């Protein structure tokens, strides 16, 4: 056996040992179940909410509003609203989370700080959201504080403001953790070099530091934007159910309406759009851009 054959066999073995278990796991427990639901999205709601044939495109046509009576933008409008909401949440989370991740990664007590950021999220989600209502309600924490200053009360609950605050709160660690890991390994000599070359603080940061943290930012933005796109509990509770997001639509089909077929179709449209976005990004950013995304 020659050397290149052994090294190729070894490479294959290493590949199987690293990528193999995780990929197999996802194949069995994610891809196969997801295909079951994909099939469901082409079926129809039968008696007692069961799935029945024949195969049909009706659920997708309904989602895109292509009805025999003409175009109906109901669901596409809801999808658009959810995307705008998720984008807004992501932007604010980035503004709050990036500097925080930076501060943690450059601190001497980084492990403690990191744990401090994650600790609140070990309390149940629902309990935290209820706490936000107590903060924003008419005689709540914020209005009591404002009252002590002789101000207010403000109508904070229910409001979009409250929904944004609680959603940003919920997803903050999803952004902080990946950005932290990227900042933590920054090569500071690049910044020194830039400053030696006469770059100011801002330019030094933009040219020597920011690019190095981009992989973390991209991962963090994804981990915030994508889940935020599917939320509904927070907007139901802090927005008093006044708006409907795509998450509500899907939830509703698996709940009282018991139309799993339409619910799955809506979910697959959502997933397809996000994956298409990723694919587009990979095309534009090239191999290097793709590398940043796992």
């Amino acid at each position: 056996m020659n050397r290149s054959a052994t090294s190729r066999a070894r490479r294959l073995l290493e590949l199987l040992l690293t990528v193999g278990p995780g990929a197999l796991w996802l194949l069995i427990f994610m891809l196969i179940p997801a295909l079951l639901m994909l099939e469901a999205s082409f079926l129809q709601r039968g008696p007692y909410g069961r799935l029945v044939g024949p195969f049909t495109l009706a659920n997708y046509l309904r989602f895109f509003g292509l009805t025999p009576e003409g175009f109906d933008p109901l669901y596409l409008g809801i999808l658009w609203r959810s995307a705008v909401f998720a984008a807004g949440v992501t932007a604010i989370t980035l503004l709050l989370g990036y500097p925080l991740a930076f501060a943690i990664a450059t601190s001497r007590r980084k492990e403690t700080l990191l744990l401090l950021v994650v600790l609140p999220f070990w309390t149940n989600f629902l309990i935290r959201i209820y706490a936000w209502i107590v903060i924003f309600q008419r005689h709540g924490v914020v209005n009591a504080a404002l009252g002590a200053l002789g101000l207010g009360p403000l109508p904070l609950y229910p409001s979009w403001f409250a929904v944004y605050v609680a959603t940003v709160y919920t997803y903050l660690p999803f952004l902080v953790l990946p950005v932290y890991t990227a900042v933590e390994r920054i090569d500071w000599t690049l910044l020194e070099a830039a400053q030696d070359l006469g770059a100011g603080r801002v330019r030094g940061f933009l040219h020597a530091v920011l690019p190095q943290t981009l992989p973390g930012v991209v991962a963090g933005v994804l981990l915030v934007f994508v889940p935020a796109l599917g939320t509904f509990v927070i907007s139901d509770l802090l927005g008093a159910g006044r708006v409907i997001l795509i998450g509500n639509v899907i939830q509703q089909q698996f709940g009282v309406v018991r139309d799993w077929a339409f619910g799955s179709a809506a979910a697959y449209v959502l997933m397809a759009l996000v994956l298409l976005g990723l694919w587009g990004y990979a095309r534009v950013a090239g191999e290097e851009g793709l590398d940043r995304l796992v």
Partner: protein
Amino acid sequence: MPRLLKLHTYLVLAFLYLPIAVIVALSFNQSRFGVRWTGFTWQWYLRLFHHHRVAVYAENTLIVAVASTLIATVLGTLLALGLYRYSFRLKGAIRFLIYVPVVIPDIVMGVALLLFFAWVRVHTGWLRLSLTTIVLGHVTFQIAYVALVVRSRLAGLDPALEEAAQDLGAGSYATFRHVTLPLILPGVLAGALLAFTLSLDDFVITFFTAGPGSTTLPLYIFGSVKRGVTPEIHALSSILIAATTVGLVLGRALLRRR
């Protein structure tokens, strides 16, 4: 740290702990339906100690979170490492596969796993719903989060380091153990922390993969939306926060002494 950055950090931490302060306050509130302060009491803590079911639920939650985090951290880290290091034919497909658990709505993933487990059970008798199936479900979404966080650490890692080690005669495992792992460890820990947090708080996927006797705290808490969450849960949350904080302080003190 620049002063402005420090101020920002304190403000965001205050933001993160504001709801926690409210929860701790409500755990001492006399009102069973606590949205307004009606007076101080210890009764919810006392009742909690007699509520033996909550202890079982908390235990289930921890077992699932620890087991699933361990598995997912190992698998997710290896996955990220392999994808970073090698090029192969199915790489693009696997990359997209990793995104599926992040992108798929919880309810769809939960129902999908329920149907899948039922299908396997009918044909093989395996995968009866229990704590084990919850762990299987959690690992599935955790792998993706761990892989993404670890990958953001690997991106831009200087390949020269690994190559140098191998040129010096270190085998793949030795290179991994002494060069790669120390470099990516912060990413692995951050990924594990995220995975643990996600497991601890998951409701939807847990519900559809849980069997008899494997109720976790989130299942119990979401189940009480019909009758209202009792302040005992606030007391439990407060104890958990206090215990973790004490553990943290003690751990640091011990480390410093060494």
